[in-house]
């Protein structure tokens, strides 16, 4: 069978059946694993920060997973996966040399170009850190294009924090402001204990010239949006990545629909102005 062209893939991505190979795995926490995946021979892959792929564990099912690696770095494509159900469990159990089905990338991306020239506040909660990491890599790689860069990251406990080595490295830089907080911790924890929205008040940024990116639990994002808007950041400069139960990733099945939006096609990255009113609806 002849390999499909990129144009054909773009037209009918769900027919892409050539498996990708796992080149390495890394356990990030007790329930979270990063897979490094290599495309089939002859296939190139590029993505924008914030986009996702549909990963398929053969015979089990398919899930949307954000690409968590550096969008400008060559080499394997990284996905960080939390073991939450049958499919993610099967993916987290993959070993180097095994295969995974991949189709994508899908969805909208973080507006990193539009944020240039101003401050950027990046907010991540829990397993929201992986989709944000690709954007953070971009911001760091183009540090001179932004003014202050602030990362606010929250997790349940210190053991749940992802990428601790990178966090430590970023915290050591004078040109980044990185604040980490957890819901609860033992007495030997040196970081913060509290909730992410409470970090907004003391974070150093100019609200009038700030673009905010956030991803995490919906409740956390709602409270963080309120805190950002109280601080003076306009809602059209606040962007969030929505989580929904995506199945087709082609805006056909309707599983990921929120009001008029298909998250797989119109998202996952939305402006708060567009999506905000739908977050508070009981039925959307």
């Amino acid at each position: 069978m002849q390999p499909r062209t990129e144009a054909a893939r773009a037209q009918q991505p769900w027919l892409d059946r050539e498996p990708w190979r796992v080149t390495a795995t890394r356990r990030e926490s007790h329930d979270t694993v990063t897979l490094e995946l290599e495309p089939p021979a002859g296939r190139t892959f590029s993505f924008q920060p914030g986009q996702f792929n549909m990963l398929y564990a053969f015979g089990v099912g398919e899930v949307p997973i954000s690409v968590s690696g550096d969008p400008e770095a060559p080499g394997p494509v990284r996905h960080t996966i939390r073991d939450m159900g049958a499919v993610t469990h099967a993916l987290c159990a993959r070993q180097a040399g095994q295969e995974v089905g991949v189709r994508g990338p899908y969805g909208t991306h973080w507006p990193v170009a539009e944020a240039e020239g101003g401050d950027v506040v990046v907010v991540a909660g829990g397993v929201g850190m992986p989709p944000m990491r690709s954007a953070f890599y971009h911001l760091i790689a183009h540090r001179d294009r932004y003014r202050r860069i602030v990362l606010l990251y929250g997790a349940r406990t210190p053991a749940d924090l992802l990428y601790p080595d990178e966090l430590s490295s970023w915290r050591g830089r004078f040109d980044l402001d990185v604040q980490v907080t957890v819901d609860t911790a033992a007495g030997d924890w040196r970081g913060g204990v509290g909730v992410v929205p409470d970090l907004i008040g003391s974070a150093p940024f100019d609200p009038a010239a700030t673009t905010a990116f956030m991803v995490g639990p919906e409740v956390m994002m709602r409270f963080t949006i309120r805190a950002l808007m109280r601080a003076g950041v306009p809602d059209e400069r606040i962007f969030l990545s929505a989580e929904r139960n995506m199945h087709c990733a082609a805006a056909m099945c309707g599983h990921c629909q929120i009001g008029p939006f298909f998250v797989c096609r119109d998202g996952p990255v939305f402006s708060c102005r567009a999506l905000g009113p739908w977050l508070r609806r009981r039925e959307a």
Partner: protein
Amino acid sequence: METLEHELRSHPFVGDLQPAYLTLLASLARNVEFAAGAFLFREGARADRCYLLREGRVALEIATMARGHIIVQTLGAGEVAGFSWLLEPHEWQFDGRAIEPVRAVALDGDAVRAKCEEDPRLGFELMRRFAHLATGRLQSTRLRLLDVYGTAHATPH
């Protein structure tokens, strides 16, 4: 005294009070420092101070036999550590431990309460601020009770 007034003026919790009230509070205040690991207050002890944090961080924590000491919340510069002094039984409910070197302005809780009794306008203004503070901490606690990073965080595929 001028230094204390200046420090109170630059603290977000009281900085916008009327100048006369800042002068009054400065007369009831003193600068304090704590080394990392030192306790600002201990659970069960009489609560007679209010700490307006200027530098460093404080952990509010509780000691348990089963799990050692657990940090309930951390507070930093610009925040207030402790409002047990305000209401009866004037007893600290948690330990307050410096996790970094801390500089703070300590207000004499008994004296501040007495001044609030004498001047209800000052009393209302301070109570309003502490009510705002307590409400914010209650909301943060509710958010944590939701365990947003737990199973509710993601669709269980």
